[in-house]
């Protein structure tokens, strides 16, 4: 991880802030972290007030400061850009959280217990944000989590070089300090189990299970050397066997896809001493959906970008990957996403030799989620449909948010959804 700002650097950065009226950066933050206010507080030497603002608005403020793709969010709106360059909001935000830890300053306050039980399914950023918000309001919150540890994607998929386990654990301590109860290895696996929660005394259920199903090109069965990105990233982060370093070191790796996950997978392979890492993407560099800075960093780190390249077949020898048969594409007319369609160039078939293939072409709801959410109104893609203002689902007392409602999106959005549902639950409880 990049080093954190020192206090002087943070003050200097806040000193550049224009302290805008109706701060546009605050509007650019999906999570409602309110950078306009916390930067002003820092500028006016009210550093504890600044820390409290971040913490109270965004329980994962430190992580967001590190992982938010700020150049498309808060910093994109910064009014200082035309006369200078945007304030480094994410870094200031992270500084405040780390500084708060140094000061041992915890501004989170809990109201008197109201003895209302709420269940949350999924301990990713969205579930955690909802839990923290509700716990602050005095609710008694149980999170049901399939995995043995908290954090969702942050724990199991985002590579350590971008978010260290230590940082994640520190950030989650604040949530435990609010008294949120997490039940690990406790998947909720069917519609009946969901229903049962209400009978067991939970007055509302927030569903935030994320999108852990991987799409696939359908070119592979079980080959040695073939991974989907989720599986690969999860193994890279795991301390259990097999040791991915042994598997990847010295190998040629091809990552298929053009999003942030593809870049994470490629960088992880590079860190594991792969001999050669390529990202294979079917359109051009400009159309790669990944974060702009992330793409540039990946290029600089020596990852090859095989753009306008479409795999058509994986080549194997004795069940082991040896290469990709691919064609060259050219850009055609725009498709529904507004991006030019990749059109294969005839006669361009060629072979890319490789030892490892990692597919990173998109996440979606897990296959078994259809069963789990059979009683809910779902989108075509199998995502839970919710009311935009409240996060309520088609079923009474059930709320949902995060990736399982949006499709793969961002941590600050997952946080926002958790807050939104908590607010709706609070309002609904007070009405009933």
């Amino acid at each position: 991880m990049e080093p954190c700002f020192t206090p002087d650097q943070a003050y200097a950065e806040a000193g550049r802030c224009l302290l805008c009226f109706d701060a546009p950066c605050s509007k650019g933050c999906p999570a409602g972290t309110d950078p306009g206010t916390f930067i002003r507080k820092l500028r006016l030497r009210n550093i504890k007030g600044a820390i409290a603002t971040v913490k109270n608005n965004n329980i994962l403020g430190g992580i967001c400061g590190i992982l938010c793709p700020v150049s498309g969010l808060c910093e994109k709106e910064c009014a200082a850009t035309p006369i200078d360059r945007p304030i480094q909001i994410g870094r200031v935000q992270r500084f405040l959280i780390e500084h708060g830890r140094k000061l041992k300053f915890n501004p989170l306050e809990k109201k008197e217990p109201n003895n209302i039980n709420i269940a949350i399914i999924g301990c990713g950023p969205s579930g955690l944000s909802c839990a923290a918000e509700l716990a602050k309001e005095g609710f008694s919150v149980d999170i049901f989590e399939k995995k043995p540890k908290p954090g969702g994607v942050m724990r199991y998929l985002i590579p350590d070089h971008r978010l260290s386990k230590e940082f994640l654990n520190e950030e989650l301590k604040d949530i435990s300090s609010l008294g949120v109860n997490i039940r690990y290895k406790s998947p909720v696996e069917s519609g009946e189990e969901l229903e049962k929660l209400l009978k067991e005394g939970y007055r509302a259920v927030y569903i935030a299970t994320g999108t852990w199903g991987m799409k696939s090109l359908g070119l592979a069965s079980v080959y040695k050397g073939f991974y989907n990105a989720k599986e690969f990233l999860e193994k890279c982060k795991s301390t259990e066997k097999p040791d991915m370093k042994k598997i990847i070191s010295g190998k040629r790796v091809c990552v298929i896809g053009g999003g942030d996950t593809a870049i994470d997978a490629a960088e992880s392979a590079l860190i594991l001493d792969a001999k050669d890492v390529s990202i294979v993407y079917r359109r051009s560099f400009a159309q790669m959906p990944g974060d702009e800075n992330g793409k540039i960093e990946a290029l600089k780190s020596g990852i090859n970008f095989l753009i306008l390249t479409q795999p058509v077949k994986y080549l194997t020898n004795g069940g082991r990957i040896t290469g990709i048969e691919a064609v060259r594409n050219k850009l055609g007319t725009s498709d529904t996403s507004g991006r030019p369609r990749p059109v294969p160039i005839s006669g361009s078939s060629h072979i890319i030799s490789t030892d490892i293939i990692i597919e990173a072409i998109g996440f979606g709801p897990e296959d078994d989620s259809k069963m789990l959410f059979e009683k809910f109104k779902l989108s075509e893609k199998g995502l839970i449909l919710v009311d935009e203002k409240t996060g309520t689902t088609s079923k009474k007392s059930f709320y949902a948010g995060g990736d399982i409602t949006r499709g793969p999106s961002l941590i600050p959005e997952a946080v926002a959804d958790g807050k939104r549902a908590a607010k709706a639950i609070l309002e609904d409880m007070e009405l009933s």
Partner: protein
Amino acid sequence: MAKLLDLSIDFCDVKFPNPVLLSSSPVSNTAEMIGRAFEYGFGGVAYKTLGFDNIKIIHPSPRMAGYTYGSNNLIGLQNVEQITDRPLQDNLMDIEYLKKHWSNHVVIASIMGFSEEEWIELAKMAAGSGADILELNFSCPHMTVEGSGMKVGQSFGLIEKFTSTVRNVVDIPILAKMTPNITDITEPALSAKKGGADGLTAINTVRALTEIGLDDNVPKPNVAGIGAMSGYSGPAIKPIGLRCVTELAQCTDLNLPIAGCGGIETWVDTTEYLLCGASLVQITTGVVHYGYRIVEDILEGLSYYMEEKGFKSISEIVGKALPNIQPTDRFDLSRQGVGEYDLDRCVGCGQCYIVCQDAGGQCIDWDYDKRRPVHDEEKCLGCMICSFICPVSDPPLISYREVKNKKSVIPPVSE
């Protein structure tokens, strides 16, 4: 705003919800403005100085100039504004309105008469409209009307006279607002006390010239080709304000409560004024720069500070630094030290070398190959200028270390 500790304080037997006030100036010009300031959290106001309508006040245009240093906007502000240009009746009605709608907040009416009769009438009318306290403006450094403002503040007889004039006609507490443009601020303050003042406000603006136009040779603000020696305010004058407040607070004959003013923007500035003996603070330029919203951070910051230090009330902070502020002859000169260099973090800029050569004890050599200073402790004066310019901080690369029985360092005769 975060939940705050109790920040209330009694001042001249009037209870203030918190010690942060608007000072008398354009930031406290109308009830509408002040009402908004109260909503943001200000605990009271010194209302823009009232005067009689018989002398028409016309503000020069432009009436202010900002002083920018490097990339820091408005480290100072120079103004040539007069007292209020609004009709007296309107202002009195506004004060009445404020007291009606904001009964827990304190309204101090600042007044300035141009004759004894005017002081009497203004005082009675302001008190009659419900003002909790009067503040006598003896300190405006650029009144265009003869025999007013700072001219009174510099003539001790007039201070005593006008204060007692007002004292004789009202029962509410009276503050005298002091000018720093004087050799010893305690003298006029003692005169005000003799006249019957219950408290003091210090300081009004410092008479100054901040900038001269290089093309037109006119000082700023440039009022149609003419500038004037006039009032300077903002962060640049905080050191002067702190000095004045400390002098007033340390004057045992005086023993009056003080509202501190001058360059306050943050809770840190506020706390410093409190530590030096002010019980309240007043703010103008901070608001000119940032708006009323700064009060939220002042109150929060104060509250956090009190929590950290275990203060139960604002009054416990007041004057805490005073025992540590003494004449220079009380220094223990046997205790000497040196600069200590943590060179592992040095970035090799060489500024310490330059200043030590040209303004310090020439105790640093420069290693050209390594781009590092070579510091000789024996020759170090311990003046610490190197630490002021070193860009590496958190913690500072160059820090002060006391050295027991340090040999005194006197530069030898040049060879």
